[in-house]
């Protein structure tokens, strides 16, 4: 089953990190694709773009943002969207993604992926803004389920219901982060398979996997260390139900060598076809 947007299955990718620039440009490793952090390449005319241009010449790239703030009650930032669109055109990014969250209000940006109240009011708000962003970009936006550490007292539905209704009513794509599903399931006490059972997989254009940090009382989505097997098993479910979808490893702290990071991403292969 291909996704309904006819976006390609790029294979197994890596989050592009500055620590790996030199290794990539020097050795041109056989990586299927890279995901870039959009904001690192905005409002710069210098060296970050120099590296990015060379990498985008050699590999397919996808843009992943952290400041769209789709759930914020502040107006959409048109300048940011203009810059995002220009970066997409510059890199020939296959698609653009961000998170189901808000990052600030009243003009301030916390640079954190703050949780949404899952209410009818919030759903209508995010649907309208997602449509507006897609109209601006002229392409489907992929929204990612975030890790969360808090749930609002006002919630009237669970995250998977909110995400599914949002995707259908805004006609947007989904970036399914199975590590985030796992982290939130532990933090909020639900079965991660219940979450996956509600996902419209025909809208899933990409999957994220990552490591996390277990503090006992809660789990932090730290993107540190290798992916644990229960998360890989959720990837296997997503791979099977989507009929094949690109997967990407995020590793953002205590980043090992490029070879080690890539080897961890390639473990995705060993979990393909391990579910029935």
């Amino acid at each position: 089953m291909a996704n309904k947007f006819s976006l390609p299955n790029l294979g197994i990718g890596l989050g592009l990190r500055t620590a790996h620039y030199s290794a990539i440009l020097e050795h041109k490793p056989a990586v299927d694709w890279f995901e870039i952090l959009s904001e690192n390449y905005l409002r710069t005319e210098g060296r970050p773009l120099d590296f990015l241009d060379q990498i985008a010449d050699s590999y397919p790239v996808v843009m992943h943002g952290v400041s769209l703030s789709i759930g914020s009650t502040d107006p959409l930032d048109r300048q940011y969207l203009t810059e995002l669109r220009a970066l997409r055109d510059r890199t020939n990014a296959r698609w653009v993604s961000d998170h189901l969250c808000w990052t600030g209000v009243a003009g301030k940006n916390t640079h954190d992926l703050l949780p949404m109240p899952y209410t009818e009011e919030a759903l209508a708000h995010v649907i309208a803004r997602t449509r507006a962003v897609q109209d601006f970009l002229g392409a489907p936006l992929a929204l990612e389920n975030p890790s969360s550490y808090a749930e609002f007292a006002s919630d009237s539905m669970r995250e998977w219901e909110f995400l599914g209704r949002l995707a259908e009513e805004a006609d947007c794509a989904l970036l399914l982060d199975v590590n985030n599903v796992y982290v939130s399931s532990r933090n909020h006490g639900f079965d991660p398979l219940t979450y996956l059972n509600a996902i419209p997989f025909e809208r899933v254009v990409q999957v994220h996997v990552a490591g996390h940090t277990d503090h006992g009382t809660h789990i932090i989505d730290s993107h540190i260390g290798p992916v644990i097997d229960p998360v890989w098993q959720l990837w296997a479910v997503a791979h099977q139900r989507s009929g094949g979808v690109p997967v990407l490893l995020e590793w953002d702290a205590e980043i090992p060598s490029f070879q080690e990071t890539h080897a961890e991403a390639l473990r995705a292969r060993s979990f393909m076809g391990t579910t029935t």
Partner: protein
Amino acid sequence: MKREPTADALGVHERASATPVHEHVHPQALLGQAPEWAHGSLSLRAQQEWFAAIVSTPQTEPAPVDAESAARLVTPSAKLSSLERIDIYRRGYHARLIECLADDYPVLQHALGEEAFESLCRAYIARHPSTAPSLNYFGRHMAEFCLTQPLAEPGFAADLATLEWAIVLCIHAQTAPTMGLEDLAQVPPDRWPSVRFRVNPSLRILRLAYPVNAYLQGYRRGQSPVVSGARSTIVAVYRTGRSVWRLELEPTLVTLVEALAGGATLEAGLAQVQSLLADKTEQEGASMVSYCFQHSVSSGLFSAISL
């Protein structure tokens, strides 16, 4: 006057979607009271304003929440109270921005020490919260901010921040291929007086009251530099290709570079330099001017000649 390379100022911490786990020194959050309007049914806007206000409150000030009101905003989990769950975001907010500032100011962090640097950052975050989608320029106010803070050596800290911020700006600035001495040889002798130069577009010339470039260089070499008293220096910071350079400039060279950067012809620029050399013999002056000029060209300060 040897130019010194500057190690990569980016890439220690990724500015990504991950939640930082680094546990900075953070005192127990001071609790205050929920705002008057935060009662009853809350709109999406009201929930966001309240949540953001709690998360961004410095640890030294009471957050607008207490245990009872926190439960009106966020539910408890099986293992954490409502306040503890919100506090994960409060710690993450400050930790992420402190990491960003540490990326931009690693030598200032070393000079002040971890604890003083973190206190400085927390005050900075409260005074200059981010309003941009990108964190690339979040730290731009640090030098002036140091002068307002109760630091042991605020002037030294401000100059060091000025130097480190110039490095960040150079990383993000455009540059251009540089010209070399061989390009000068192509100029017909009769055209020399009217020649003009284009400076490297990333060039920044810093007038500093403290010898912070020497401190930074000592840090880069793994030495244990000490914070020293005032001594004026002028430092050029610029980028050639992917390398950022620092070059301490003598007054004659500064005069020449700034004159040429301002559009003066070579003849006019050299005349300004000569005026600084009144105490030299003609031969000494000519030798110094020649050295300054060749050194500035070979160091990559200029990108092109325009005839």
